[in-house]
């Protein structure tokens, strides 16, 4: 009897957070499905009395060219940022730091500073980071354009969507460069933690042989960390796929109409449809699609993590 009573207490302890979680988060999932089947609006007559329209919103999404290009840009952004940029820059940084730590006091100090700087960039609020990048990209007087001018190159108007490179507005490449800066520390910390598990004899032997840090990288670190790649790629991909805050602030901040590129990203598109055009039903249909994508990604991460 006593055992049973204890279990009830435990069960209640679990139930409190679960009820809270269901009540304020999970409940929204069926509600989102329901709203996505209506033509509800945020304001106006459709906000009070809306009609059930079936799958019409989803058909509209499938035919919407803006949605297609937003999805494409989201995909490019997440692939280039996560899989190409953040993953590899993070790995290289980890290798640089690891090498520096083992090779003398001055290098150790230097890489310790690099580590603090990278982690600081990572933990600082995305709004501030985006604001810094915004200044770097300034049209006439931004640091990046000043650098290009001093190298004898033509300055670029990053915010002009008519400028393209490889068929994609140059704005997207600028956003990618910025996000690699902000987010590569995740793979760096994961790699550094994993490198502590690599037998140190390997690095010691490499040091005696006089191997450079990039030789260590290709012949020791990379083969030993390969098993972490699926996990890191999935996490980095899903981190960038619906990047909202960073891009939103970078492109407009408090003045969203000034220079906001609605198709930059699927998240920004859904947001501007729902809160800019007040088409809640349509925006929610996009949200439901995003939710499905993240459910699949979440399941994959759950299994890859082991």
């Amino acid at each position: 009897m006593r055992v049973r009573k204890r279990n009830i207490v435990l069960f209640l302890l679990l139930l409190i957070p679960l009820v809270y979680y269901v009540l304020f988060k999970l409940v929204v999932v069926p509600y989102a499905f329901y709203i996505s089947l209506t033509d509800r609006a945020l304001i106006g007559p459709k906000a009070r009395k809306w009609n059930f329209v079936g799958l019409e919103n989803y058909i509209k999404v499938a035919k919407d060219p803006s949605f297609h290009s937003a999805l494409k840009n989201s995909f490019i952004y997440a692939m280039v940022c996560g899989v190409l940029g953040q993953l590899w820059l993070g790995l290289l940084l980890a290798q640089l730091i690891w090498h520096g730590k083992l090779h003398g006091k001055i290098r150790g100090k230097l890489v310790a500073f690099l580590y603090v700087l990278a982690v600081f960039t990572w933990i600082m609020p995305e709004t501030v980071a985006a604001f810094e990048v915004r200044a770097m990209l300034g049209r006439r007087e931004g640091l990046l354009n000043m650098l290009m001018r001093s190298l004898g190159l033509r300055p670029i108007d990053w915010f002009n969507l008519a400028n393209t490179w490889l068929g994609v507005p140059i704005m997207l490449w600028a956003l990618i460069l910025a996000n690699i800066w902000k987010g590569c520390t995740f793979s760096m910390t994961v790699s550094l933690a994993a490198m502590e598990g690599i037998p140190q004899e390997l690095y010691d032997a490499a040091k005696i042989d006089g191997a450079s840090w990039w030789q260590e990288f290709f012949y020791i670190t990379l083969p030993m960390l390969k098993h972490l790649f699926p996990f890191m790629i999935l996490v980095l991909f899903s981190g960038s796929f619906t990047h909202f805050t960073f891009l939103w602030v970078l492109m407009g901040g408090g003045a969203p109409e000034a220079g906001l590129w609605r198709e930059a990203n699927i998240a920004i598109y859904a947001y501007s449809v729902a809160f800019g055009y007040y088409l809640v039903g349509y925006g929610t249909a996009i949200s439901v699609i995003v939710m499905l994508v993240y459910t699949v990604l979440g399941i994959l991460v759950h299994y890859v993590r082991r």
Partner: protein
Amino acid sequence: MRRRILKIANTVAFYICCLLVLLYFATPHIWLITSAFSPESKPYIQLVRPTIANLVAIFKEHNFVHYAINSAIISVIGTLITVSLSVIGGYALHKLEVPDIVILALWVTTFVPLLAYIIPYYIYLSALGLVNTYIGAAIVLSVQNLPYYMWLMKNFLATFPKELEEAAMIDGCGRIRILFSIVLPLSLPPVGLIAAMAFNGAWGDFLAPLVLLSDRRVMPLSVGMFTETIRPWAVYEPWQYNLLAAFAILYIIPPILLFTFTHKYLRGLAMLGAGVRG
């Protein structure tokens, strides 16, 4: 001889790489700091005539204290909810045999970002009357990653010696008593870490306040610093960089402080899958 040249080349390559990384990472931060003390709103680094006029202006004309208090209220309430629920939930998860499917469901739903459901969420919360209230924002910020923190707590408790609890149980302690007088005092480091992460997340969040706290009375710093300084009607350059930078350098002080106290644990955390929203 060849070996010697190679060694020198390696050293040079190492320092050049370090320098490049340093420039890439530090330049924006250097700009932020110099800009906060600069008399003009310029997107390039200028060191002439440093002034504290920007800092004075954000306190006197732009209600910095008001926004900071709002931010603090929301973050503290959110952190309290997160910590208390993740402690009891993590303890229960540790003791009970929860079916795998529940764990999977919690993990996967945590993985779905706030952004994916913010639109129906806004309608739902406004029906509950929680829009433009502190408690509403605190709920939104605390509920998002709750299962993750519970799971973190559970993982810590798995390393806990069983004998302590068993001894207490023989002495006739109930579950709640064990939790509060034995488990909790011994798990202050992870609880502190959870608190730091929850606070940092709430303090830095932009999306939830943008949607839910559009009223200036309750608006926190993350949104307020932009509404105060950006002039949408100025067509060529609506950004007042130096004022915004002054806001920003004060705004990032709490995250920096939290980081200096908790960075020791960061690496272990990254291994556990933290920073999912990277």
